[in-house]
């Protein structure tokens, strides 16, 4: 019986040209690096990383806003740990906490809500960052706060959604993508049908992949088979978790609390309809409104190439800061901060001089 590697080699030979597959999800990026499977691919097949690390695509102006509110008396900022070290224009949450600001790292938005219940004299603002996977949990915390009248709780919302950013990447002439490894846990919520337009409009195959090395190799083999046959379909490799239409309960909750909005992606820019905003019904729980937060233009290091890395047009090795001024201990850009960031993956697994 042929192994997966042999199948991939055979199909790649049959295709006979260079193929670029984008793994959209940051966790897929990490698995691909950690397990060394990139080295098992034939030279003609390249994996490029996409904009699927939530922290990496969060605009620096959002970090600035979080820093501003954490300095206020009677405000506690609750956040996922990933955001702590992301540099804003002149500070980070990590630095603010060291200076005495009230910042709590939580594992779940429900922990942030609990914190608000337990500290009635503080306003607890949760930093709502993440894709479709995370949005239902945050929607739940807002819905629950409204139901139980927890009025000292709010969410600074910067949730983003996948379809429009994938569309934007496909419109970018600089980026050549022959197939998408679609994010598995986003798809658990949304269902695989959200990628259908990519196959129909762009004739590009999509495979929703699981997170074991074997899953990713299998998904690559499936994408290559589609390319060899001239097909462009949505296929689900991760069928143990993903269906065509997803988790309806979670979708209804997200729909109840959020509405689509324009969102600003770090390094990519504003994309219409690519974000989630808190509906007017729940305005009281929108930190931007409840706390009167003003978003101002951020200043980031002009040498940082995270923007190009997130779009798949640069690799970290193209960046002058990589491995010198920018390391996991002293990150300059978000792709070095996050454990799922492409720069962090290159640094850890490819070596600085790779």
């Amino acid at each position: 019986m042929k192994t997966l590697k042999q199948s991939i080699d055979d199909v790649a030979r049959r295709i006979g040209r260079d193929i670029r597959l984008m793994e959209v999800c940051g966790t897929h990026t990490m698995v691909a690096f950690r397990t060394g499977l990139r080295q098992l691919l034939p030279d003609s097949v390249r994996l490029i990383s996409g904009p699927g690390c939530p922290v990496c695509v969060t605009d620096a102006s959002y970090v600035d806003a979080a820093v501003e509110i954490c300095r206020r008396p009677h405000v506690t900022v609750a956040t996922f740990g990933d955001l702590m070290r992301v540099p804003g224009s002149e500070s980070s949450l990590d630095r603010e906490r060291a200076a005495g600001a009230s910042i709590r790292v939580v594992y779940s938005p429900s922990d942030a809500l609990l914190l608000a219940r337990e500290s009635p004299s503080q306003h607890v603002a949760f930093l709502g960052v993440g894709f479709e996977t995370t949005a239902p949990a945050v929607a739940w915390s807002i819905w629950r706060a409204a139901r139980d009248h927890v009025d000292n709780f709010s969410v600074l919302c910067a949730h983003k959604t996948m379809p429009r950013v994938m569309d934007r990447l496909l419109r970018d002439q600089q980026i050549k993508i022959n197939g998408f490894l679609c994010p598995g846990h986003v798809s658990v919520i949304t269902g695989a049908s959200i990628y259908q337009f990519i196959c129909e409009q762009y004739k590009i195959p999509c495979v929703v992949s699981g997170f074991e090395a074997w899953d990713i190799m299998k998904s690559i083999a499936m994408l290559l088979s589609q390319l060899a046959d001239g097909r462009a379909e949505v296929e689900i490799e991760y069928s143990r978790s993903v269906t065509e239409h997803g988790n309806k309960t979670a979708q209804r909750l997200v729909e109840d609390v959020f509405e689509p909005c324009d969102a600003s992606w770090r390094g990519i820019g504003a994309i219409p309809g690519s974000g989630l905003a808190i509906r007017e019904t729940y305005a009281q729980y929108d930190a931007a409104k409840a706390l009167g937060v003003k978003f101002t233009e951020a200043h980031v290091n002009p040498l940082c190439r995270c923007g190009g890395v997130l779009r798949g047009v640069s690799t970290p090795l193209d960046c002058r800061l990589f491995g010198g001024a920018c390391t996991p201990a002293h990150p300059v850009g978000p792709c070095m901060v996050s454990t799922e960031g492409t720069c962090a993956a290159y640094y850890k697994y490819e070596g600085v001089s790779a």
Partner: protein
Amino acid sequence: MCLAVPAQIVELNGTTATISVEGALREIDVSLVEEPRLGDYVLVHAGFAIHKWERSEVEELEAIRANTDLREVLR
């Protein structure tokens, strides 16, 4: 951040469940999945079960993990 882990429900109290991930216990919310039951395997993200796994799906993962020696799978 989009990491999600499979876990088994070992205690259930309304929409709150205690899960075990390879023996490590943690409390989560199960209101996003339908009819959670004791012993069910769920996929957990940010403190919420987002999907319920059938027994056969758990076995599939176990089989993949048992084969994670890439030299065996990919030689």
